[in-house]
């Protein structure tokens, strides 16, 4: 009892810290990872581990070299690594997630000041960087249950993703239910809508994310694809195909909801979600790429602060705006 600590109130804090939130996100991603290992083989796990470890390592090294306090303990780098791996095809060479992690952690995140300061989502920015720099590797999707080496480079014959088929104007070869389950070619973590939704429910129940962004995003994408269905397809079936493929569920629940790069108010989040949905469908329907989730979220990331600025909630009691002198 030599001295008493004096701080500003409140003197109690909620037990959830940044670290606990990040661990929750990792937990929520695990079902989809297990599915990826089942369907794409152990190589999916290898890619994920390489990505996570390199992301954490780059964060550690950057903070060390720049003489900043260590931040790997908040697990945000691990989440970035995991999300990056989830948005890569399983056949990519092992150096690719390392390059991606470097881009995500050092260039997109740390150079802007680290967690909470980056403008765009690091994992998505890295994915788009890899996509533009290495287009053939990034488009080399394999069929489910194809035998791939665990470590060595692959030499596979790429197959069309369901979304690419839609782009060509043909219905995907998979049954719609398989698309929902995740029995289709695609990036490591994006295929199983069922298990991603399970993880998302966990995050919603734990109040890590709110419903606003994903619901607005998915609903907008659904409405647009219902209005403009692909040729010769049943509108409802087309909507389901659009929603279940191309990482839309992964993006809506796990990437668009990234705290740092999305708005804070409920109204702002709904506008942000609608924006993501509109841009995604615009790129998918009118653009040159079959999928548009990454670009849509990155564009909306850049607008998030402006959305916040124009969607300030009405103050309880209705305070007037500050009169400038």
């Amino acid at each position, binding site marked *: *009892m030599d*001295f*008493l*600590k*004096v*701080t*500003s*109130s*409140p*003197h*109690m*804090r*909620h037990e*959830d*810290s*940044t*670290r*606990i*939130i990040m661990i929750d996100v990792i937990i929520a991603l695990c079902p989809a990872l297990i599915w990826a290992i089942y369907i794409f083989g152990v190589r999916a796990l290898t890619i994920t581990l390489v990505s996570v470890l390199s992301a954490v390592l780059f964060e550690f090294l950057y903070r060390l070299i720049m003489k900043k*306090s260590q*931040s790997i303990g*908040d697990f*945000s780098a691990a989440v970035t690594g995991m999300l990056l791996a989830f948005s890569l095809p399983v056949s990519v060479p092992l150096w690719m997630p390392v390059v991606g992690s470097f881009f995500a952690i050092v260039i997109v995140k740390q150079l802007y000041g*680290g*967690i*909470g300061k980056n403008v765009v989502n690091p994992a998505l920015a890295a994915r788009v960087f890899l996509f533009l720099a290495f287009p053939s590797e990034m488009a080399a999707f394999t069929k489910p249950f194809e035998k791939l080496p665990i470590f060595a480079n692959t030499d596979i014959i790429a197959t069309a993703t369901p979304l690419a088929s839609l782009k060509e104007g043909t219905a995907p070869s998979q049954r719609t239910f398989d698309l929902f389950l995740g029995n289709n070619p695609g990036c490591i973590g994006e295929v199983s809508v069922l298990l991603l939704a399970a993880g998302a429910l966990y995050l919603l129940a734990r109040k890590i994310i*709110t419903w606003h962004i994903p619901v607005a995003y998915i609903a907008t994408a659904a409405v647009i694809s219902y209005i403009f269905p692909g040729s010769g397809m049943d509108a409802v079936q087309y909507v389901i195909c659009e929603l279940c493929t191309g990482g839309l569920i992964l993006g809506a629940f796990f990437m668009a909801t990234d*705290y*740092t*790069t*999305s*708005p*804070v*108010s*409920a109204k702002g*989040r709904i506008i942000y979600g609608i924006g993501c949905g509109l841009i995604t469908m615009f790129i998918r329907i009118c653009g040159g790429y079959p999928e548009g989730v990454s670009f849509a979220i990155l564009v909306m990331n850049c607008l998030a602060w402006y959305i*916040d600025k124009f969607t*300030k*909630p*009405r*103050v*309880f*009691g*209705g*305070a*007037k*705006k*500050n009169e*400038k002198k």
Partner: protein
Amino acid sequence: MAITFSGGIHVDGCKGTSTKPIEDMPAPEFVALPLQQHIGAPVKAVVSAGDHVKMGQVIGRNDNALSCPVHASVSGTVERIETRNSYIGAGKTEFIIIKNDGNYDLCEDIKPLEKNVTDLTCDEIVNSVREAGISGMGGATFPAYAKIQSAIGKATEVIVNCAECEPFITANHRLLLEHPMDVINGVKILLIALGVHKATFAIEDNKKNAAKVLEELVADDEMFSVKLLKTKYPQGDERQIVYALNGIEIPTGKLPADVGCVIFNAETCASIYHAVVEGMPLISRIVTIDGDCIAESKNLRIPLGTSYRDIIEFCGGIKGNLSKIINGGPMMGTAQWDLDATVTKGTSALLFFSDKYEKKTQPCCIHCGKCVSVCPMHLEPVYLSMFSKASVLDKCLDYNIMSCMECGCCSYICPGNVPIVQYIREAKDKIKAKQKK
């Protein structure tokens, strides 16, 4: 279904003391009574060192300003008058230190009311309340007489704030269970003073037994009603209570009286009863003693001016690693630094905490927006703290920083451990200082 407001947080109530009856704590050898225990102007000492005072005698008053007289809480000799730092953050203030003679001689001015309460005029009631030195006992310490005066002609409803939404505190809960008639009679006096015919007890639904007691006692009086509120912090805030009960938002910068309500804390009502009917000034109050570092948690009726040191001794001493002593609740109370600090009119609880309720990580905002979703005033604390940190006061005003009531929900929920309220307080102080210039 219980009614409530939007925003706010669900905190572990930690109301372990709700089953502990109120005990009377004997007055210690010395009491130290600050001359500023209320919002308003400090009072001036009317006794000097060496004077003999009786229990309940006025020892400090200031009739020309908004203030509450201070009374001796024991009989004895004035030892000295000294200047100390105010323990409630009001700068320097004078303390009158009285050596207790152990006789508890009651001042002869204290006489029970000789006529019927219903025959009292408004002025008589206001005067008794003022003379008794009653200030708001929920923690805000606004002089009660001034509140009554400001509500005359405006208020059509008296709300009795029994929400007690701060964790740990159970003083009002015990008061309502053990002496409900004191509270009800106090409210009746307020109704007479204000000429109002409607009183509502607003009580959180974690105190259903107290609500039941009240309901039974006021069942055949149609002026009274008991409303259950959802247990949520800060349910006891005036603006949130009025919204929960009547669905009215008090406009920014206005008072509850402007929308026809006047709100009194339950213990304030009981004190008003004692003041008007028994002539008893406010010289003791109920304090919840709790926290993980006090040997025995209790509800105590403590003479004002009793030092923390004496209370700790009465409660069996400190256990574990004491890190903080908090005067008030854990959400809005003030951390104390001195064991010689004393119980004042606004001390609803005294909490002894180790560091187990704190987060130990480096503060870092991750822009999660949780503070926005919990803010009961619907502000954006994330931006308030950011602009405050950068001292951009204009932006703070743009984001309506002055509407913040510093309830602490944002800091509580923040996963990044950012002391948001502290930043907001700093900016508010700077803005106020600038406006004074």
